C-alpha cells in the first residue's frame, strides 16, 4: 500500500535531500510544505501516514505546535506518525518533542540510512 509522507521544512535543500532519500522507499507518495501553518493545512487535507517535521521554522507555527495539533486531531492523531527533525539536540528539546506527542526525534545533520530505517519502522514495514 502506498504510504503518504509529508515533509515540512523551511529549508528547500533539506526538503530535497529528504525527498532524494525517500526515493529509496517502495511505494511512497511524498508531499512538501515550507512552513508550519501550510504543513498543518496540508496534513488535514491529505491525511499523511507519516510527517517529517522541522522544529524551528520562521513565520508561524513551529514543529512542536504542528505535532501537537496532529496528535490531538481526531482523525490524524492515531494514524499519522511524526518524526521531528531538528538541529536542537538538547535533552530538554527532545523532552519537549515527547510532550508534543512525536513518535521519533532526529537530530540534524542526520544519516539518510537512519531516516529510512526509522520511516520503515514507523510505517510497520520490514526492509
Amino acid at each position, binding site marked *: 500500500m502506498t504510504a503518504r509522507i509529508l515533509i515540512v521544512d*523551511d*529549508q*528547500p*535543500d*533539506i526538503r*530535497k*535531500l529528504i525527498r*532524494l*532519500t525517500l*526515493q*529509496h522507499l*517502495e511505494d511512497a507518495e511524498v508531499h512538501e510544505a515550507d*512552513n*508550519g501553518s501550510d504543513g498543518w493545512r496540508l496534513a488535514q487535507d491529505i491525511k499523511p501516514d507519516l510527517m517529517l517535521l522541522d522544529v*524551528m*521554522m*520562521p*513565520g*508561524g*507555527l*513551529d514543529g*512542536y*505546535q504542528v505535532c501537537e495539533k496532529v496528535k490531538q486531531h481526531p482523525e490524524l492523531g492515531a494514524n499519522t506518525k511524526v518524526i521531528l527533525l531538528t*538541529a*536542537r539536540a538538547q535533552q530538554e528539546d527532545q523532552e*519537549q518533542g515527547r510532550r508534543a506527542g512525536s513518535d521519533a526525534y532526529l537530530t*540534524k*545533520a*542526520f*544519516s*539518510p*540510512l537512519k531516516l*529510512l530505517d526509522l520511516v520503515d519502522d514507523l510505517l510497520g514495514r520490514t*526492509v
Partner: protein
Amino acid sequence: MPTASNPLLVLLDLVPSPLLLFNPDGRVAFSNRAAQGMRARPVLSLPGDPNVRELVRAIGGGKIVMQTDIEVQVNSDEGIETLRCDCAPKPIAGLVAMAVTEVAAPPPAAAGTDAVPVGAADEENRRERLSLQQIMALIKADLAEPIGAVLDAAQTQPFPAPDAGLSGPVLTLRERLDRLSDLIDVFGEDVLIGEERMLLPELARSVCQELTPLAQAQGVSFIIDGEQADLPPVYGSRRLIRRALRECLHNAVEHVHPAGPGGPPQAVKIGFHAAGTHLLLSVRNLGVLTAPTLTRYANGLFQAGPAADQDTARAPAALRIGLPLTRRILQLHGGRLKVEDDAGELHVMLELPAGAPLRNTHHLDLLQAQIYAEDLSKLMARSRRTA
C-alpha cells in the same frame, strides 16, 4: 563524477551558497551554480592560491587541520576581492568540499581619518562590552552578600513585622543592578541573542505575577485578553524578552491614572495578536504619559546625538533606561516598539518575528551533504536489494 545522474551533485547545485569540490591534488572537480555565478570566479582563481592548495591537500590527505577556513584575495573584473573559504573537515566521496563567500570590503575612510582594519571595530566593540560586563559582574558579586544580609535581617526581624520599609529599597536596588547588567549585555553590534523558544502569553503571565504586589499597591489589575490559542512561539533570549516585557508592564502600572475614590480599579490590558509573520503584544492603560513622551524616551540612549536634556536626565530610570532597553531588545530580535495614543488610552506595542529566526545554515548544509555522501552507496545497495 557524472553530473546528471549523481544525486549528490544535483543536491549541491541546489544549495544557494557557492560550493566547490576539489580533488586532493588541488584541482576543482565540481562547482555548483552559485559558485559559477560569482564575480570573483573562484573556479579559476582559487586553485592557484598556495594557501588553498595546502588546505585542500591537508584535508584530502586525511591530516587533521585546526583551521578549515581561510581568507584569500583574488583578482576580479572589479579589482581585488577577498573570499572566505570554509572547508568541510573530512573529504566527501574523496573530494574536499569548500564553501566560498565574498567578504564585504570596508567602507572607504573619510578624508583626514585613519582607516580601520576589517573586523577591528567589531573586536574593539566586543572588548569594550566584555570589560563592561566584567565590571558589572564584579559590582553585582561585591554587593550580593550585603544585599542578601540586609534582606535577611529585614525579613527575620521579630517585631513588629518584616521591615518592608527596608527590604523594599534593597529589592529595588537588586532589580536596578539586574537592569544595568541587561543594558550592558545589549550594547554593541555583535550581540548574540540565542535561540530559546518562548510562548509570549506564558512569559507575560509570569511577569504579571511577579508585578502583582506592585500592581495591588497601585490599585491596578492586569487583564490578559486577545487570541492566545495557536500563537506561534518566539525565538531568542528568554531573559532579555522577559526584561522587555517587565519594563513595559512595570511602566504601565507605575504611570496609570490613579483611580478616583470609590471608583473602579484601573486596569492594564495585555493583548496578543498574530499579524502575518509577526506577533504583537499590546499593553494598554489610561496613563499619565503620552505617546510622544514615551517615544522620546524610547529613542534615547542607544542613539548618537546631543546629551540628554535636563528633563530627560531627571526622569525615572524605568523611562530613561527601561524604555530604550526594551526598544533595543526588540530590535535585536528583529522586532520593534510602537507607542500610540487612542482616545486617551495609551497603546504600547511590542512586535516580534513569529517562529524561528531565518537561518544561514551553510555549515549544516555542508555537513549534511557529507553524511549523505557517506550513505550514498549503502542507499543504492538498499534500493537494488528492495527492487
